[in-house]
């Protein structure tokens, strides 16, 4: 009897799969005709699939990427606009030199320990997945101003969760570790640990966005009221406890072009319950409401996580107390949440943004201008705002540029109040006293500048989970970039403390008249190296000669990142800047 039912069940599931996988031949499209109140249903045949590109066409697209090696040590790059941040972007890990011969031989496995090749201050020694990564000093790296020869012989990166990592730190097995939230009070009170504690800035902003097309959030007075009613400092003191900074606008101070609270103290939005109530009154008068309970339901959504829940509950309590508005708090799992934001975002949604490259363009413009990442989530399209940001990208005078971004932020968080910025992240770390170190402003550390007064191995915790990749073209997260940026060096390199742009693998460069074409002159005599089991050795080519880093390697790296076959998450940043890259990335019929 039970056997029969199991067979029925199997057949049913199979049938369901077959049915759901059948694609409809004809698509029904619902069209709203302006002037008519009902919607008209139109049947349309789906577009035919784009014609597949031939190999010649593909090669032509690859050659169209404007990064060319004029000779072994001269690289010419043409940018799409004479933007101020072009040099920033061309120094990013996605445009590092990559070893073509190794990638063609080993394929996707080229990053694994045993064959990984690099040229920077460190080389990869060992990578035990989910356990640790060990890198070792590269004696062949000559040292340049922005990236000196390493002082520490070996660095071991562990992959522990915050609490076990801090236990290891207290046991003396780790030299640098982040402080978990639940230990924050204890560490601040401890006589030894409190001296080792440093709260430094982290290049991320936490904010609540509004769906400006969904009533009642389509009214700017209500949005301003909600934004003004958030007691940001109170939230930081009582809920977050990490010494974060209340955010008055979106772009994090410290990024090139971003306004700073010192220079623009009254810019943006701050906690002001009186003003909030005034804005609420303006909203209610406009809508003809006499009582707060007449306001339609507002949904606040966040992605499932204990910390986001606590923040959401604290803020909704603030809104209830100051304005009398009760919002409905709900959450969704991360991937489902991302889909919801893009397809039908709720009235109020929570997100954070972390920097890709330290320039205001990466923040305000890439996220909120027309065509930006969160355009669908905010449903906010402001032409004046977008044009202002496009001009700001080209403005060479730093003060004028900062003013333009300040103006843009004012539109974003006050005039149109499309989002309510909440706080600027901080990083809370403890470092042992025998580590002499710098504190990076841009997200990852330059450990070649650190030194130890005891021992010769530095042990640092990266964070939970395996390093996703050590391939520069594919890396997106801080763990991967932290290791990659010590194995290879870009054309330009940022000073991690001052954020000043310095020469990297390019000694110097020349700019054309129109500001679009840069000619980079590379340093010579820097070899590719690998770990051979006992020491770091130079990589030899087929004739037995050492391979040096050339402009061809950089050209290969840039084109590889822009190639759709590589499927790089961050290629869009290069697509923004380098001419021809966007056409290659979005080539139809590849």
């Amino acid at each position, binding site marked *: 009897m039970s056997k029969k039912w199991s067979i029925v069940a199997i057949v049913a599931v199979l049938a369901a799969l077959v049915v759901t996988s059948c694609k409809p031949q004809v698509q029904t499209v619902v069209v709203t005709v302006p002037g008519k109140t009902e919607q008209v249903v139109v049947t349309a045949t789906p577009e035919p699939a784009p014609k597949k590109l031939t190999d010649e066409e593909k090669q032509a697209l690859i050659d169209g990427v404007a990064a060319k090696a004029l000779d072994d040590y001269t690289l010419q790059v043409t940018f799409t606009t004479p933007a101020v941040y072009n040099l920033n972007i061309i120094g990013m890990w996605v445009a590092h030199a990559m070893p073509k011969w190794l990638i063609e031989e080993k394929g996707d496995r080229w990053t694994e320990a045993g064959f990984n090749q690099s040229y920077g201050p460190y080389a990869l020694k060992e990578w035990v997945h989910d356990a640790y990564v060990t890198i070792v000093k590269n004696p062949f790296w000559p040292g340049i101003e922005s990236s000196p020869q390493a002082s520490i012989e070996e660095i071991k990166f562990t992959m*522990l969760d915050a609490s076990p990592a801090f236990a290891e730190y207290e046991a003396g097995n780790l030299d640098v570790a982040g402080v978990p939230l639940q230990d924050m009070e204890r560490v601040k009170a401890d006589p030894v640990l409190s001296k080792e504690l440093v709260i430094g800035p982290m290049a991320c902003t936490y904010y609540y966005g509004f769906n400006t097309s969904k009533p009642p959030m389509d009214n700017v007075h209500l949005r301003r009221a909600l934004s003004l009613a958030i007691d940001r400092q109170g939230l930081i003191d009582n809920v977050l406890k990490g010494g974060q900074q209340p955010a008055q606008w979106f772009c994090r101070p410290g990024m090139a072009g971003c306004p700073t609270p010192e220079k623009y103290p009254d810019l943006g939005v701050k906690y002001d319950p009186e003003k909030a109530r005034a804005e609420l009154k303006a909203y209610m008068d406009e809508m003809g409401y006499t009582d707060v309970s007449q306001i339609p339901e507002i949904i606040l959504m966040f992605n499932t996580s204990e910390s986001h829940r606590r923040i959401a509950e604290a803020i909704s309590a603030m809104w209830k107390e100051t304005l009398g508005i009760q919002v409905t708090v709900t959450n969704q799992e991360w991937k489902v949440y*991302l889909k919801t934001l893009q397809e039908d975002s709720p009235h109020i949604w929570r997100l954070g943004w972390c920097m890709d490259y330290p320039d205001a363009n990466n923040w305000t413009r890439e996220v909120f201008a027309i065509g930006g990442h969160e355009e669908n989530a905010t449903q906010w399209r402001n032409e004046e705002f977008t044009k202002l940001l496009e001009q700001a990208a080209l403005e060479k005078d730093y003060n004028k540029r900062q003013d333009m971004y300040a103006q843009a932020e004012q539109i974003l968080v006050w005039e149109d109040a499309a989002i309510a910025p909440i706080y600027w992240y901080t990083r809370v770390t403890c470092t042992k006293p025998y580590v002499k170190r710098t504190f990076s402003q841009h997200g990852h550390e330059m450990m070649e500048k650190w030194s130890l007064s005891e021992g010769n191995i530095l042990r640092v915790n990266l964070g939970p989970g395996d390093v996703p990749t050590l*391939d520069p073209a594919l890396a997106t997260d801080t763990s991967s970039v932290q290791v990659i940026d010590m194995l290879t060096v870009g054309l330009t390199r940022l000073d991690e403390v001052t954020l000043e742009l310095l020469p990297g693998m390019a000694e110097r460069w020349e700019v054309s008249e129109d500001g679009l074409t840069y000619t980079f002159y590379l340093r010579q005599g820097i070899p590719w190296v690998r770990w051979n089991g006992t020491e770091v050795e130079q990589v030899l080519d087929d004739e037995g000669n050492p391979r040096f880093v050339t402009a061809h390697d950089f050209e290969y790296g840039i084109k590889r990142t822009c190639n759709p076959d590589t499927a790089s998450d961050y290629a869009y940043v290069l697509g923004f800047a380098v001419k021809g890259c966007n056409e290659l990335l979005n080539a139809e019929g590849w």
Partner: protein
Amino acid sequence: MGRYIARRFLWTVVVLLVLSLVTFALEHAVPGGPFDREKKLPSEIIKNLEARYHLDEPYWKQYLRFLYDALIPRIAKGEPKSLLEESLIDIKLWDDYHLRWVNLGPSYSSRSRTVNDIIREQLPVSFQLGVAALTIAVLIGIPMGIIAGLKQNTIWDYLGMSIAIFGVSVPVIALGPILVWIFGVMLKWLPPTGWGAKPPYILFFIPKDLSWNFWRYVIMPAFALGLGQSAIIARLTRASLLQVIREDYIRTARAKGLPERIVVLRHALRNSLIPVVTVLGPMFAAVVTGTFVTEQIFGIPGLGKYFIVSVTNRDYPVIMGTILLYAIFLVLANLAVDITYAWLDPRIRYE
């Protein structure tokens, strides 16, 4: 007995097929895909990624492709051209030909690893931890249960069962950090996190270095994990022993003049172990394939994390691989349990 085992193996294949079908349907029914990112990928790149991993094909085709890769051995020439053709079993035949079998697919989260790599490198770690934990559980649990059962309603009984209640009530997530704090941070006797072995392994499971350097990492996590399991085993052993001790044949054995030790160990224990062995089967499968919480607290690079993280990442091949792996372990463990029944109790016969 042989025919019984053969029949069980055949049923295992059916169970695994149905399980893979249900898992496949569920994982594609859940909204969200592996390439949904916070910073949206260009649509052409998503199309390319889906084409590369065959996610744009109709579902039945994807499922059959998975079955084909996982079940059918293939003969190919030379090294695999890309990671997508890598397999668990790769036997070199004559010339340059290879026999390749069991390709569980790539991992969408890591470009340089396949599901086979993940299982090859991390299952042994979980297995080592699991075997150690279960050994502790059995070595503590069974004697404790026997003593409590024989000396019922005395101080030994109460003590033993109190320890058992403690073990069951205090989860690893509480016991683990306490152990780490006492032995790792304060006394510094044992390393707080980490594992003493890394790939490659001998015979798939055995680490190359079996000295104290390896065992010192095993002690705390195995104990944290094993204590809870030992409590269950102790209580079951005690209850079962209490029942068996009152049977007539035990009275006969005593009447025959056998020493008490022989009565308990030879006669009573064998029969009272049946419920314990029943529980040990699924316990073995669960513990040996990886325990998420223990591995996270002690920073052990095991397989447990992949069961959970693969679902949040919508990493379909890893989801399928881990679930099928668990199913295989479970089925084999249950088979071992059933065979042990026949040994423990000669009245039980299979045909």
